[in-house]
């Protein structure tokens, strides 16, 4: 806003000066029948001295005054221009090199467009434009460009939400943006520094392809999605992953923070995975239980309890476990004694492991079997009877 006002006042001042000069010249012309006027052709512009910065494109209108002829065609050319600058004449929407000029017209005959290269150092540059007619009249117009150097900015690598949290087993997605503020196109290659076992993937936000480097044009920006996958058995805590984007000139770093929340998970099974066993009534059978803390927090005070049919006894060689570290496994021997009246066949027994935070349960199918001892006793009875029969045959048989 300020600048605009400044420019306007500047322009006003310029017009004032130009007006004064024109007035003086006019008086001069009137009084002396100026020699200059005899030359006939004048090329001029509104503003022949411009302050600008490198990389800008400017356009200014050109006017011609021809005192000799009412109408004529004018050739336009660039007399001299600093190296690297590009410029051309334009009328309406065409690039032109020859235009028609009439004396009466006060309209611009053409405009001159110029592009200042970005790398242009600070300084004063002069462009000389030339207008000539076929009759040999000509005029030059020097334009002074006061160019200030373009600031070469630094690239940016920013993260939208750098602090995220979640339980183990989830992956975290960060939206980042790289802005190339430098004067040239850059290739940014990505690297990361994460704890071992962590996986970090860089993707363009518009594409699902995993990338290792990306090209960004000068002045452009590109969204990058970083996916961080922690290892499955990660302990609860805070982690920092340093991601860097390295270009030829710069190294940009950004830190991603992950907070892994604690999860409780307790698993109960048997050493061989079988959840059925055979038992005899009133006789002890044992089974080895396997208690696994599959969460990422140590579990404390694990109580083992059972839910067995009435009259059954279930004992553990260790009914309370003080501490089970994260990821650790403990084997416990359970002894199951069916009731003396238990029926032959299948029964169900539950064994539970409980902590204040988590519980696990396992269901056993226990097949109660009749002991074969009684079968053997019965066979002995039959053998006894047969022996008696044989004895009788011996005693009475041979008559």
């Amino acid at each position: 806003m300020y600048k605009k006002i400044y420019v306007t006042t500047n322009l006003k001042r310029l017009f004032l000066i130009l007006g004064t000069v024109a007035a003086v010249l006019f008086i001069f012309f009137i009084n002396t029948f100026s020699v200059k006027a005899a030359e006939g052709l004048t090329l001029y512009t509104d503003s022949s001295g411009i302050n600008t910065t490198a990389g800008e494109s400017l356009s200014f209108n050109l006017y011609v005054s021809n005192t000799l002829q009412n109408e004529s065609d004018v050739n336009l050319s660039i007399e001299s221009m600093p190296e690297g600058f590009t410029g051309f004449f334009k009328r309406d929407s065409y690039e032109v090199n020859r235009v028609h000029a009439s004396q009466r017209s006060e309209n611009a005959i053409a405009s001159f467009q110029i592009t200042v290269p970005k790398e242009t150092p600070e300084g004063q540059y002069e462009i000389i434009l030339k207008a000539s007619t076929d009759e040999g009249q000509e005029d030059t117009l020097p334009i002074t460009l006061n160019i200030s150097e373009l600031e070469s900015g630094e690239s940016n690598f920013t993260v939208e939400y750098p602090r995220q949290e979640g339980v183990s087993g989830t992956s975290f997605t960060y939206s980042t943006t790289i802005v190339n503020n430098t004067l040239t196109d850059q290739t940014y290659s990505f690297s990361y520094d994460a704890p071992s076992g962590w996986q970090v993937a860089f993707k363009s936000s518009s594409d699902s392809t995993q990338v290792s480097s990306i090209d960004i044009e000068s002045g452009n920006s590109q969204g990058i999605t970083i996916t961080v996958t922690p290892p499955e058995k990660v302990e609860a805590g805070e982690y920092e992953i340093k991601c860097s984007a390295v270009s030829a000139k710069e190294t940009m770093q950004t830190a991603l923070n992950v907070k892994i929340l604690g999860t409780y998970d307790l698993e109960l099974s048997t050493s061989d995975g079988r959840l059925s066993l055979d038992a005899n009534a009133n006789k002890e059978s044992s089974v080895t239980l396997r208690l696994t803390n599959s969460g990422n927090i140590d579990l404390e005070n694990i109580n083992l309890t059972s839910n067995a049919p009435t009259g059954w006894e279930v004992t553990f060689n260790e009914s309370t476990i003080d501490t089970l570290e994260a990821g650790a496994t403990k084997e416990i021997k359970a002894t199951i004694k069916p009731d003396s009246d238990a029926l032959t066949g299948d029964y169900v027994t539950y064994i539970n492991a409980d902590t204040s935070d988590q519980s696990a349960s396992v269901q056993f199918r226990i097949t109660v079997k009749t002991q074969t001892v009684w079968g053997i006793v019965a066979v002995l009875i039959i053998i006894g009877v047969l022996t008696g029969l044989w004895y009788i045959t011996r005693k009475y048989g041979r008559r």
Partner: protein
Amino acid sequence: MQAAKGKKYHGLKVLFEKEVADFINSKRMLLLILFMIIITISGLYAALSGISDSVEENASFIFLKLFTVSANSIPSYNTFLALLGPFIGLIMGFDAINNERSEGTLNRLVSQPVYRDNIIIGKFLAGCFIIVIMIFASGILIGAVGFLQIGIPPEAEELGRLFVYLCFAIIYIAFWLALSILFSTVCRHAATSALATIAVWLFSAIFVSLLAGIIADAIYPLDNYEGMFNQLNNYNCELNLNRLSPYYLFSEAASTILSPSIRSINAVTVTQLSGALSGYLSLGQSLLLVWPHLTALCALMLIMFAISYVFFMRQEIRAN
């Protein structure tokens, strides 16, 4: 010694073959075959008309259902065999000894160069042989026709159970054979011995269960408040008295063998049922449940035979 032994078995073999031949040629055999056919056909009819309803309830061990399913008030094969099986033994044994005696052929038999005990052993073994053939023939027939009808091949477990069941039936009928031989040894007249055997059969099949109920109620009354506490004792008492009957013993054993879901043959308390899963027993476990029944039936059969043997050996054989 070797010769004597050989001779002994030779004599037994001759007698055995003679008895089998006699029996097969007799008119009684026709009667027996007719009897078996009736049992088989009515059992099969009951099974085939009732099996579709039964399968809707529970579709496992379909093959065994052929022997246990009853329909339209026609009892199952198993019930028929338990009730009427004794008749087979009775028909074959009721006049085994006293008929020979009254016809005077026993004298001639004894005068042959065979040991005297071979006569009674031969008769018993010949009867057992006929029973084995009859029972297996009828059991396999039912299995085959049933398989044709239901189209589901039996599993090895089912075949095993069927085999064990048929063996039970053979022992059960052999017991009645031994009993009727005993009566025919003791009684002079065939009619007396036949009636005696029928009396025992009626008693064990019908009256034991009535008496058991009466006695159990007398010992453990079910009236008043007392009755609430006596219920289990009353049931157990009645059950044990019932088991004195060979008929009940065989029925219980047979249904346990043919129904793998039976887990106990005694009274089941709520305590025993807590945590129990409905499942099937293996054949071995079912057999162990009824092993006492098998023992008792075997022992009864052998004891009956032993008694008749002793009686026969001590009897005077005269021509009269």
